[in-house]
């Protein structure tokens, strides 16, 4: 069962096979969690979002159609088919979560993002890492989501665009603006360390 494609596992899960569902969860949990942490910016929200995404996966399973029978999906294979669906659900949940009113003032957002139990800050190493983390946290949500999906988690542009429900051109536009913003925000690091 470990080697079965996602579609087959979804079919089994749809017939109530919990072991098949468990394989799916274990297969996608690490990347889904990483994506969620990078978009929502903190562990507790990321955990809730990932749990909700897999709950929807379990609920969707009885109605799951193999890739060849699903319409309107941009995918290169069965595995990508499920992943595309999962990351679209996950990304939407993350963006919804980010749209909720934040309990901090905008002016303090950078500092808070740097000091919270944060998906960026906690893994950053040293001053440059913390600066990059804060700059990432201050990007507009969709730009950060595009960067998280494409740059950090290595999704192809077709999958990432599908996850954000936009065209590839729109995805590239988000990525360009995100990287340009980061280059400007971190410009002083470039002059100090010759990084850029």
């Amino acid at each position, binding site marked *: 069962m470990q080697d079965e494609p996602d579609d087959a596992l979804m079919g089994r899960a749809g017939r109530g096979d*919990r072991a098949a569902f468990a394989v799916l969860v274990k297969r996608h949990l690490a990347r889904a969690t990483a994506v969620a942490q990078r978009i929502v910016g903190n562990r507790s929200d990321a955990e809730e979002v990932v749990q909700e995404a897999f709950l929807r996966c379990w609920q969707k399973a009885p109605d799951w159609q193999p890739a060849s029978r699903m319409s309107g999906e941009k995918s290169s294979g069965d595995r990508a088919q499920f992943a595309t669906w999962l990351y679209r659900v996950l990304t939407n949940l993350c963006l919804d979560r980010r749209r909720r009113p934040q309990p901090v003032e905008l002016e303090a957002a950078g500092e808070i993002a740097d000091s919270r139990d944060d998906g960026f800050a906690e893994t950053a190493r040293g001053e440059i890492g913390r600066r990059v983390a804060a700059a990432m946290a201050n990007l507009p949500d969709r730009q950060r989501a595009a960067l998280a999906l494409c740059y950090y988690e290595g999704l192809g542009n077709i999958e990432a665009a599908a996850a954000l429900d936009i065209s590839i051109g729109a995805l590239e536009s988000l990525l360009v603006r995100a990287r340009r913003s980061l280059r400007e925000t971190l410009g002083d690091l470039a002059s100090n360390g010759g990084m850029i």
Partner: protein
Amino acid sequence: MMRMDRFRELLDAYGAEPGRWPSGERAAAEALLAEKPEARDLRGRTAKLDAMLDRAAPLAPPMIDAEVLIERVLANSQSQVLAFRPAKRPSGTAFWLKVASLAAAAIIGFLVGVTQLGNIGETSTQVGGLELADVSPWDVSPWDVSPWDVSPW
């Protein structure tokens, strides 16, 4: 061959690593890279931003235990199913048992009420042999009078 402005767009969007470039354009971009020093220079500058972005990665391992998450999801799913499941109609036998119970309770209540009606005048001023006027809540400790000592009749 790929145009330089498209190559610049690729770098601006996807970064300097060819593995991140769209697979359909990768070969053309790499050909341009091999041929044009300007392209290599652009890629070098982009790689510096990539190196900075990499300082924020990788993330810590997943904090959610897969088994715990699976249990939570399945339990949550079950509770939602139960929450949305319409209430089952009682079977015929159960329905008539409930009706009979309610009728019996009503009859017993009526009989008790009728038999106690005549005693109201006699017991209204005395409870368990005590004059109500003589009993103050400050005089009687709740431990002195047990509810079992005082008959309601």
